[in-house]
């Protein structure tokens, strides 16, 4: 519940590095001493060439990965100090993910995909999972698809299901890694307008990775990254 309070600093990186040991004696630096801060209610885009470390950065923000060096603060909490189960809880309640490849579970229906995060919640929810799922899917124009399987949907529909799933737990932060990468430009802009609306109306902080300039324009601020370093 503490995350519902006003948090001025949503994400803060101090000297964060991510290294990969490739061979004996050779280390690849995917991120080098990154410092950045993203405030609550911000809409930030991250841009950079392929391989520059954008996804690596997103995975660190989304608590899917841990840094090699440096500190990451999520809602003023230093993540290296919290347990694996607590991190799972933050991923469940605090963050919503939207991926380029949609990442829906193919054997579950649209409805089951969207309701899935509520299954992993360990606290009593202030909403009915079934009702909220139906409500969001209706709002996203997917009411008649609730019992369909993901492979029967178009790319734009699948991405909207993924957005619905990201929203089900009422997150304070949405991380979107090239959400329009697999969509045509019209559908891409529809998805972006949905994100924009969430930021404006529901004050959800949004971090977006893209390499398309006109997609990045939806954000109010752009962070440029190259070779694992933030450009100023």
């Amino acid at each position: 519940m503490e995350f519902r309070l006003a948090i001025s600093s949503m994400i803060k990186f101090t000297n964060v590095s991510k290294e990969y040991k490739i061979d004996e004696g050779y280390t690849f630096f995917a991120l080098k001493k990154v410092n950045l801060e993203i405030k609550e209610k911000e809409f930030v885009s991250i841009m950079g060439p392929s391989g520059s470390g954008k996804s690596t950065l997103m995975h660190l923000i989304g608590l899917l990965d841990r840094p090699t060096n440096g500190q990451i603060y999520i809602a003023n909490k230093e993540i290296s100090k919290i347990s694996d189960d607590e991190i799972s809880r933050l991923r469940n309640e605090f963050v919503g993910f939207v991926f380029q490849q949609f990442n829906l579970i193919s054997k579950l229906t649209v409805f089951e995909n969207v309701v899935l995060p509520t299954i992993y919640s360990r606290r009593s929810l202030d909403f009915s999972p079934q009702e909220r799922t139906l409500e969001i899917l209706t709002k996203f124009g997917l009411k008649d698809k609730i019992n369909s399987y993901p492979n029967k949907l178009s790319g734009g529909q699948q991405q909207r299901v993924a957005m619905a799933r990201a929203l089900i737990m009422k997150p304070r932060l949405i991380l979107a890694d090239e959400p329009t990468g697999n969509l045509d430009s019209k559908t891409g802009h529809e998805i972006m307008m949905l994100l924009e609306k969430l930021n404006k109306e529901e004050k959800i902080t949004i971090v977006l990775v893209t390499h398309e300039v006109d997609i990045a324009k939806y954000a109010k601020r752009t962070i440029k990254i190259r070779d694992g370093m933030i450009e100023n």
Partner: protein
Amino acid sequence: MKNFIFIFKSAIEDFSRNKLRTFLTSLGILIGIFAVVVLMALGLGLKKYISDQFETMGKNSLFLVPGRVLSGGSFTGSVSSVSGRFDDRDLQTLKKINNIIGVAPLAFKSTKIKGLLKEDYGDIMFSSETFADIMGLEIDTGRFFDKSDVSKKTKVIVIGSKIATDYYGSIEEAIGKKITIDNVKFTIIGVTKSKGGGGMGGFDYDKYLFAPYTTGFIFNPDKRFFRLSVKVKNENYISQVKEDIKKEFLKRYKDEEFSIVEPTELMSAITSIFSVLNLILVAIAAISLLVGGIGIMNIMYVTVSDRIKEIGIRRALGARKSDISYQFLAESVLLSSIGGLLGLGFAYLGVLLAESFFPAYIDLLTVIIALGVSSAIGITFGVFPARKAANLEPVEVIRYE
């Protein structure tokens, strides 16, 4: 717990999508549980059969047989030859011992028997009036021979119900009729109640004839007995009587020339031999359970690799390591339990079929063991794949294509 229900529900949905794979995976457990349960059922049946056989012998009896039968609770084999048979003198010795209320010697004769409808070979047991009591024989019609028949050597005979129907058509027809045993005519004074049984080396008393041993000396001129049975006053005297008999008989015989057998003692010896044999067979059958468990483990490892992407997505959505672990554990436990249930079902059918010619039955304990063992196998062999799934790094599996 919503999570728990959800996990099992999704595992079952997974299986119904892959019915053939599910069946093949649980086949090992199915066969293992089938074999174990059938063998246990046969073991139980055999045990019950043995105790039923001994139950028919009257309580508080002791048997004297030539040679060594039991030593230290198990068979030693050597039942001595004809030379070690008892005689009338031994019978008199027994009669003098305190607290013995009846003595039944036993001599056999296999010979030609001629009745109204039939002439064939049959077996006659010659004994005393106590025999019916000691062996648990009951009379259907008429009477058993009594003390005076024995002392007067009357030519009376009691026949089994099967003999009555075979040689005379019915029990009523047989009563009072004459029957010719090796050219000697006997009068039928009683027919025994059918006991069924027989088979598997046990006596089928329905096919025997019983006459006083004194009359039987006609066929048994050297007055030898195959066995001496003793009825003791009550169970408190059994060990004392046993001691006394031993003391008396040692005056005439060597220790290894005779044995005093208590039916219950004999029964427990036989039962323990069969139990050990049964246990060995069950243990061999259990090896197939091990193989079945390894089969499940193998498939679970494949499942984990197949579903790396799904695991990553679930972790990104907030699943803890333990949630993932339980999901895969639930699947392996369900797989092995399905195998266990099917195995139990087939074993039940098998036992139903076997029942007509072999005593076998499944008891509650067997059911509990079968289901317990199959789910334990699911847990044991599911733990490692489940742990592998749970320990996958979320970022690795999200990047996985």
